[in-house]
């Protein structure tokens, strides 16, 4: 027998004494709600890991609480809140995935027709990749290219050096 079932028995008897619900109905409802909470928790954990590489989910801070036996209403409230969080997390991940996709399409277009996207810039983070690189549409040969309409896409050299580009500090 599970710990929860075991300790739930005492609570059940008090509920029965007050004639609120039948024992079997409450047991089944509790079991069902616990299973739903466990399923939602699994889904939220999976989404959390997926979202982590996309910048993470908003941190949810709950007020401090102590462990207790929850009644049916409380279990339902927890289930509903968790369902809302799963829904919001899914929406957040989908929104970011759409944004990355549209930035990838923009990058494809920049590469195909640079002259149509002068000075447009797409960074690696804009397409959900790690690193500091960025693609930018720049004129060839500076002013000449700008006047002549010669544009091309340049990929930046990546993350800045840890020590910077300047001369070494004086001793």
């Amino acid at each position, binding site marked *: 027998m599970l710990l929860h079932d075991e300790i739930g028995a005492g609570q059940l008897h008090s509920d029965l004494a007050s004639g609120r619900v039948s024992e079997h109905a409450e047991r089944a409802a509790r079991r069902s709600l616990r299973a739903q909470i466990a399923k939602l928790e699994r889904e939220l954990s*999976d989404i959390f890991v997926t979202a*982590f590489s996309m910048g993470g989910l908003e941190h949810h801070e709950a007020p401090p609480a102590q462990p207790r036996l929850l009644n049916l209403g409380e279990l339902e409230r927890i289930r509903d809140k968790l369902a809302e969080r799963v829904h919001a997390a899914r929406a957040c991940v989908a929104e970011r995935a759409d944004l990355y996709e549209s930035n990838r399409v923009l990058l494809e277009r920049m590469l195909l027709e640079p002259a149509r996207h002068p000075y447009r810039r797409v960074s690696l983070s804009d397409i959900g990749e790690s690193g500091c690189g960025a693609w930018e549409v720049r004129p060839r040969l500076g002013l000449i290219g700008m006047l002549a309409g010669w544009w091309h896409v340049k990929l930046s050299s990546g993350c800045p050096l840890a020590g910077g580009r300047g001369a070494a500090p004086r001793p």
Partner: protein
Amino acid sequence: MSVAARDRPSPPAIVGRLQALSNRYRGHSVVAMRTHPIPRAYRSFFRQIGLDPDSSRIPSEQAALSRLMQGGLRSAGLVKDALLISLIETGVPVWALDAERVGEGGPGVRPSVAGDRLGSTELGDRLVAGRLVVADSRNVHGLLFGGLAPGHGVERQTKRIVLFSVAVDGVPSIHVEEALWICVEVLRSG
């Protein structure tokens, strides 16, 4: 489970084992931890008893977070090291009580009732009824997944230790037994 042991500084072998275990943690592995079956089971159970595992972290996640924050697993004495090693190895938390404070039948989990106090003295904090506590026939040793009552944990004068764990749905009993046995093995090796 009861074992004769005293708390003292850990021998170099145990300190070395902690250092080796600390190398298991990387940022991405800690993030993915919650998708593993045992942390997942404890997270679900936390929600089912009214705790939010994102605020009141489950023990294995708390240990991983401490490891990331401190840059390593620090030795804190033989008993605490034994509990930490078993937690990291299995994901199952184990607590240690001074056997002198434990009544017959050993500790179990029950809801607190009106008049319950934390610990064995009249000075202990009065508990709100309905909280889940670790208790025996004599005393309330602490809140479930919370800290132990003052004087109930292992102290200098402790000669015998009672180890207990909390198994939840989704954690195979073999993991719980393994966690307890790892503790015993570490305590005996020290």
